[in-house]
């Protein structure tokens, strides 16, 4: 490795934002043909550093060398010319456009005055084959899965001839299968002579694929070391600055009576097809039921149906013994169902509201917040302050807009709010997506705490690790059906993965409790 030449060198990069030094004299080096991981807490400055390399931000100080030459990267155009490509944390895809259109955008093949779509499609097809990416050039972004969207992002960089690829948290939104496939793709890219910078919060991935890892904390580089000589615990500690327990201690579950009974639920999805196809399961007090499955197998529809956001065609939903099939969201919420939604920005928060108003999003109309139609801000403030203290939500004040909080803190605030409703059933959908290990640890502890207090938790996650770690019982969903149930201690990733993709039960036939 040492023999490889340096393709990117960033020296003494400093970047300030109002009130914060996002990058503080950062040094970073990428060698030809390596996968170099960048690790750090939320808000540590990883994306900022990469945005600088890609020309989206201009640093206040520091120099950048690409292939030994000092360069001024004044915009993405320049970066692209230098052979740098970036797959952003939040995809930069134009949704109503087709895959091809997204890929060729900005450097379109022409035929007279018009875009030569025929040639463009062929180019995309060819490139896609070359790297084993298998995308449909004619599909629109709206129609394809998140994993596919990511491949489009990768193709965009390859189409522009990038040799240096930056991946900003590429796996946060992927299913385990997709992650596997991505890792394969990355290896293939390296084989073809590309160099890769990988930002991720998942230590496992770093261990699996990276050659080197650079750790940043609060804008400063803490260390840069070969992956070979390290281990996850050491990395976590370096990154957070304290010891982090990556394993949860969990007492055995003490099961109570059933609180959520779902029986033969049928629900239509977006295209009018059955998204849930006679789904049935039971959730008891004192347990965490993990729902494993590949994204798009009815999980979102299930959440919506359980919370009254989507009409139910047939089947029943009982909460604490009461039939609440087809009830309104509010009735269900009052019956004791709390939801940590999948998309915290879209569904969990009003980003333009101050924190105090976000903390009463579902309870504003109840006493003590509502007094005869008027809001009692004294009570609301007190409530917000208490939750923020209890759940360690880092915010300058309860008057700060939710928008200004980091993802992890936004998530903590939502969890505080939902848990504080003292629900019978807590539905947690992707509760730790995109969060750093410190935040994940915190949230996992809280979920287990709820279960220990005798609450029922339904955990929906595309991350097998999370499911395996937290669940007392795992149900696998495939094409809108629960196709099996397993005990986490009795199973492994491979078996689960198999069930999640196309279940052929060893015993044959469907397996239900």
């Amino acid at each position, binding site marked *: 490795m040492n023999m490889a030449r340096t393709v990117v060198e960033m020296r003494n990069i400093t970047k300030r934002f109002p009130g914060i030094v996002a990058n503080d004299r950062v040094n970073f080096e990428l060698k030809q043909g390596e996968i170099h991981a960048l690790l750090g807490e939320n808000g540590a400055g990883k994306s900022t550093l990469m945005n600088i390399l890609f020309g989206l931000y201009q640093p206040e100080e520091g120099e950048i060398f690409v292939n030994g030459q000092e360069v001024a990267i004044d915009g993405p155009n320049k970066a692209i010319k230098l052979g740098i490509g970036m797959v952003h944390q939040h995809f930069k895809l134009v949704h109503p456009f087709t895959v091809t259109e997204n890929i060729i955008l900005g450097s379109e093949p022409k035929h007279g005055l018009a875009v030569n779509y025929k040639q463009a499609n062929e180019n995309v097809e060819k490139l896609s084959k070359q790297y084993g990416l298998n995308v449909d050039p004619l599909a629109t972004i709206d129609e394809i899965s998140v994993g596919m969207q990511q491949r489009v992002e990768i193709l965009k960089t390859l189409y522009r001839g990038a040799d240096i690829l930056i991946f900003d948290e590429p796996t946060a939104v992927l299913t385990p299968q997709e992650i596997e496939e991505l890792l394969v793709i990355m290896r293939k890219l390296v084989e073809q002579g590309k160099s890769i910078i990988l930002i991720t919060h998942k230590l496992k991935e770093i261990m699996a694929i990276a050659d080197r890892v650079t750790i940043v904390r609060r804008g400063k580089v803490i260390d840069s070391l070969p992956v070979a000589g390290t281990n996850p615990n050491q990395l976590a500690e370096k990154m957070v600055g304290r010891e982090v327990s990556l394993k949860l201690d969990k007492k055995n579950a003490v099961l109570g009576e059933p609180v959520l009974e779902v029986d033969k639920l049928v629900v239509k999805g977006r295209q009018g097809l059955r998204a849930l196809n006679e789904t049935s399961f039971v959730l008891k007090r004192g347990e965490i039921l993990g729902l494993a499955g590949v994204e798009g197998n009815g999980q979102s529809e299930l959440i919506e149906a359980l*919370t*009254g*956001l989507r009409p139910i065609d047939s089947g029943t939903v009982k909460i604490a013994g009461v039939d609440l099939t087809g009830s*309104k*969201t*509010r009735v269900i*919420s009052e019956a004791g169902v709390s*939801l940590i*939604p999948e998309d915290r920005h*879209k*569904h*969990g*928060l*009003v*980003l*333009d*509201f101050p924190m105090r*108003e976000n903390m009463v*999003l*579902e309870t*504003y*109309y109840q006493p003590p917040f*509502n007094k005869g*139609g*008027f*809001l009692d*801000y004294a009570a609301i403030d007190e409530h917000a302050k208490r939750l923020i203290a209890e759940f360690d939500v880092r915010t300058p004040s309860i008057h700060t807009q939710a928008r200004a909080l980091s993802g992890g803190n936004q998530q903590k605030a939502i969890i505080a709010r939902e848990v504080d409703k003292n629900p019978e059933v807590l539905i947690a959908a992707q509760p730790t997506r995109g969060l750093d290990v410190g935040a994940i640890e915190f949230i996992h502890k809280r979920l287990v705490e709820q279960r220990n207090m005798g609450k029922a938790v339904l955990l929906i996650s595309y991350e097998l690790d999370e499911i395996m770690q937290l669940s007392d019982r795992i149900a696998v969903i495939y094409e809108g059906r629960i196709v099996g149930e397993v005990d986490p201690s009795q199973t492994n990733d491979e078996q689960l993965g198999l069930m999640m993709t196309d279940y052929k039960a060893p015993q044959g036939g469907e397996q239900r409790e």
Partner: protein
Amino acid sequence: MNKLIKVVTKDSAVVPFVAILLGLIVGAIIMLFGGYDPILAYRSLLDKIFGSRYEFGETLTAITPLVFTGLSVAFAFRTGLFNIGAEGQYIMGMTGATIIGVQVHAPWFIHAPLAIIVGALFGGFWGMIAGYLKAARGVNEVITTIMLNWIALYLGNYLVNRFLLEPGKGRSYFVDDSANVTIGWLSRALDDARMHWGMFFALLAVVFFYVYLWRTKQGYELRVVGFNPDAAKYAGINVNNGVVKAMFISGALAGLAGVFQVLGVFLNQAISASHTGHGFDGIAVALLGGNTPVGVLFGAILFGSLSYGAAGMSFGADVPPEIIRIVIGSVIFFVATPGIIRWVLKQLRIRKSKGEVA
């Protein structure tokens, strides 16, 4: 106290004043270009606004409907809706008040409140149509409110023509005295300026706007719907209801503007060939005021005074009154682009500090 000092010294407090100043300067430059005397023109403007008790009273009367239509547009904005229809809702408010004022006969303590309420309901209903079509059918409220403005114009004319007309007069009968909300003693004190209670209702509306949106449960719901309808759904708030309710309130506010023009200024409703512009001006007022209630109040005062004073510029300095539209437009422009003002302020500071050095 600290907070107060902070607010006053903040850019956002300076920007409007600089914006007004710059707007007036733009107007002056254009006047000079046209060969007019801007000093005389602005003096005439001030004279028209403050020059006599009568003019001052009439300025207040000119401001009043703008407070209502400004609040109307701002209210809709706050709930995520763009109400271009204040114009039509204003006409419907007039019509509702006229119908009650002319057709119903009752003691004043019933008649006037009834006329006000029915007018507000008419305006509210007119707004609600757009709200309903948006909620139920997904029809963009920008189009429907534009169309409803025209429909209201003709519907108002029809109702006056058919049911309220004083023969040969081209307008309705006068409303009964019992429905009249003018303030006689104040008018007399201000040399017969047309003073009416609408002014005070406008102030109440400002308070209502604030209290309702930021202090009540329903206001909270509407704001959630406005900022993030998806989150509203997840929180169990009925988004469609919210849209309809918001458009109702917005429409009722615009309706009140019309109500008080009828019950306090004209005392009748004329058949009208075109829109008054109060509703469209409401958009500008709302934007001038940053969609906050107090901002709208100040916006209306600025807008109303300038518009009213324009006739004075024409009278006293022979300047075409259209110039005032340029001034108002420029003021809004500068309010909306604080970047330009900050730049100007910075230049001033630099020059000042340079001056000190020298």
